[in-house]
């Protein structure tokens, strides 16, 4: 990996710690902590990913969508068989789930919902930055965001110098960029100019050409970047296709295929981060869950409460963390959706607090306008 000046300084001071000059600060606190978010666009069905076991009402309403065999988590909840890596990590206390959770949005529009899951706000399209971008900025972590996608996700916007990784089929001479760089003048060119800055400062390890259609390769490259002590601290993956209005399926089917992709990314990260996995948190993000009842096309409609899938060594323990609202008609949101009893932003705020070494109270004010988000760090994560 490239040895920048910053990297050298960190390396130098680590030696001092090891030689006993600052005995009170542990070596672990110097380790870079990674926060990885996987966006699941379309509305991930929490009840397919983390089905509640033996609920008669669910069985009745979802005749065609019931999973015949699930991986067992505890007496109340199972795990979709395609999420096999989470089961493996569960047994090592490195996977956990938050259930019956969502952003505080009940409108059931994908586009408003996705805008809000990324901005963390209450009114669609009002905020132009993402909660993760603002969290990084508030924590003075600049130039450490990495998106594994072609566009820059809204989630990461708000802090300058983010990178993305989705390599083109061939190399580009960096001299070309240098030559036009000074031509980008004026406020209306500021975004392009700062993006060119980022390109010019990219580490050599990112200047590769590969097949970006291959998600496995991208996840592998992302793992390499994240493993690097001077590399990114935050990564965002993008998956879509969770909007299964038709032929949603059970163990196999449209929703299962998408879950399999999540599983694949987490598996590659786990296998390639090595010991850095112990200093990593992986969390999923979606705009809403799906209706309890199957629809006319053996799919489901847009709903409300969903689940967050979590993995990584910074988790406190394996658990399904939930304040379960129940699935009886009167317990459902508007009589049709799993309710959300945990504002998912509280989970994300707490995760940022752990990974960015910041007080959750501080982040709550800086990132989420002081909204009432309980501190879940002690419940969910290693402090």
């Amino acid at each position, binding site marked *: 990996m490239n040895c920048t000046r910053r990297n050298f300084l960190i390396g130098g001071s680590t030696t001092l710690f090891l030689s006993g000059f600052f005995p009170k600060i542990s070596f672990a606190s110097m380790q870079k902590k990674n926060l990885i978010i996987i966006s699941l*666009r*379309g509305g991930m069905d929490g009840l397919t990913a983390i089905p509640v076991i033996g609920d008669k009402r669910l069985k009745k309403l979802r005749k065609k969508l019931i999973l015949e065999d699930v991986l067992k988590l505890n007496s109340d909840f199972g795990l979709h068989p395609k999420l096999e890596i989470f089961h493996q990590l569960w047994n090592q206390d490195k996977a956990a789930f938050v259930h019956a959770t969502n952003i505080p949005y009940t*409108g*059931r*529009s*994908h*586009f*408003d919902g996705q805008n809000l899951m990324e901005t963390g706000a209450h009114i*669609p399209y009002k905020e*132009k930055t993402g909660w993760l971008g603002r969290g990084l900025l508030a924590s003075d972590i600049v130039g450490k965001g990495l*998106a594994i*996608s*072609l*566009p*820059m996700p809204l989630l990461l*916007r708000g802090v300058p110098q983010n*990178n*993305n*990784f*989705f*390599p*083109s*089929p*061939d*190399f*580009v*001479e960096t001299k*070309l*960029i240098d*030559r*036009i760089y000074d*031509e*980008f*003048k004026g406020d*209306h*060119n500021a*975004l*392009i100019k700062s*993006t*060119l800055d*980022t*390109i010019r400062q*990219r580490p050599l390890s990112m200047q590769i050409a590969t097949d970006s259609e291959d998600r496995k390769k991208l996840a592998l490259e992302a793992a390499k970047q994240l493993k690097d002590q001077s590399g990114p601290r935050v990564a965002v993956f993008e998956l*879509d296709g969770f909007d299964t*209005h*038709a032929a949603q399926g059970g163990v196999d089917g449209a929703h299962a295929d998408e879950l399999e992709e999540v599983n694949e990314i987490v598996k590659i990260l786990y296998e390639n981060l090595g010991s850095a996995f112990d200093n990593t948190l992986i969390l999923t993000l979606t705009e809403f869950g799906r209706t309890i*009842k199957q*629809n*006319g*096309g053996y*799919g489901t*409609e*847009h709903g409300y409460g969903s689940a967050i899938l979590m993995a990584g060594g910074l988790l406190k323990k394996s658990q399904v963390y939930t304040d379960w609202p129940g699935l009886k008609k009167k317990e459902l949101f*508007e009589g049709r959706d799993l309710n959300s009893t945990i504002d998912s932003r509280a989970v994300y705020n707490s995760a940022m607090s752990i990974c960015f070494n910041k007080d959750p109270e501080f982040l709550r004010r800086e990132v989420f306008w002081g909204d009432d988000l309980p501190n879940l760090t002690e419940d969910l994560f290693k402090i």
Partner: protein
Amino acid sequence: MSLNFYRRIAFGLSPQDELPQEPLSWALNQLNTVPDFLWKGSIPTEKELRKKYGEWVYGDREVLRKKFKNDKNAYRKAKDQLRIETGERYFELNEHAIRHYQTKYGTQPVFERFWLFWGNHFAISEKDFLAEFSTGPYQREVIRPNMLKTFEDMVQAVTTSWCMIHHLDNSESVGPNSKRGVESRDTINENHARELLELHTVSPRAGYTQEDVIQLAYIMTGWSHKWSRKTLETGDVWFDQEKHQKGEKIVLGKKYKNDAKRELAKVIHDLATHPMCIKFVSTKLCRHFISDEPTEEMINPVIEAWNKSNGNLIEIHKAVVTQAFKYNDTSHKFHPPEIWLMQLSRMFDLNTPLSAEKMNYAFKSKPTGRQGQLSWILREIGNSPYRAKQPNGWSDFEVDWVSPELLLRRFWFASVELPYLLKPQNRSHGFILRCLKNNFEDHENMASLIHQFRFGTTDKDLGRQYGIICNLPGVLKV
């Protein structure tokens, strides 16, 4: 008025284009008729392509999967052969060629820009085999002929088109109190109703509720493809009374009495003429052509033209062009990759799309690399037109198109791929200078940036020249 007006509302001027004497009337005069397609190769009808779609899904699902259920390799081989025979790998490439030929050579390029706009407003996102067989002909046969009619006419045509019905699952929507609903206990699918409100007409700002979505879905029940054992889901759209929810419906406070298939036209009339719809779509038009954040001063004349003409699209388009002209020198607009590519192709007379002769396909082997080249480039620069990820289509905001990788891909295209697309007679420095002069006031400054490469004629030298020129601020934006 600066020369960038021709890129703001069209694709710039080609070496053959004459400089218009009166730019505004030049542009306005292009909007009164629907220009014919210039493409000399095959232009199959939507119906023909839907038949091919049917052959493909029937052949795969009903024949091959059953025949080769125990032999994965034989299945794969037979499936590849079926792809070739049905044109599954070919028709999208041909559609891209028809489209890009039109924007490169068309004599009404301003009309073509609006055609692209409406195709994206009523977007068909990547789903099943729509991009392969249907989205291209849908844009040609459903969007395009309606561009001289009213917005309401357009919404009516789009909403009952096979492509949109399939895209948004309306065939799966069954009224719970309909004959079918009572028998099978099937129920509605809200997808199409929600997007008709949210994306196509009034937008969430109209303040509709979940109950409005359900009621509109009830009205829409029955509009579905005709299913048969041979055509599967590719039959014509019809109104299936047996799936239609009976009784009165209320959408946005208005009652619609039980009136079977006539309910839909009535509710579309009310949605397409709703003030929030007019405001939403006018804003989107101004955003596309003028500025990411259009002001009320920019939008209001478009709304006025809409109201005055009862939603006539010719008048609406003219108002947008007039506003784009007015604000041409004081507003900036970043163009998404496909429009940028179309502009480069027209301004520098690139050798793309491939000629009709070379695009000819015999359904005997895979399409050639050359036949797939344009589609590959579109994919690599991040803007394959029929493959938007979601039903809201491609973004009109600069911030969604500026990331390190998206910019690098434009550098990659202009510096690595573009030289292969230069016609032999155009591989000179003098040619670039002429094209720049046709299209940019500050062509001298632009030329100075590539002056040192002026003697080079290899692909690499030309790549340096075009790599720089095509990515200058005044080329990425107007």
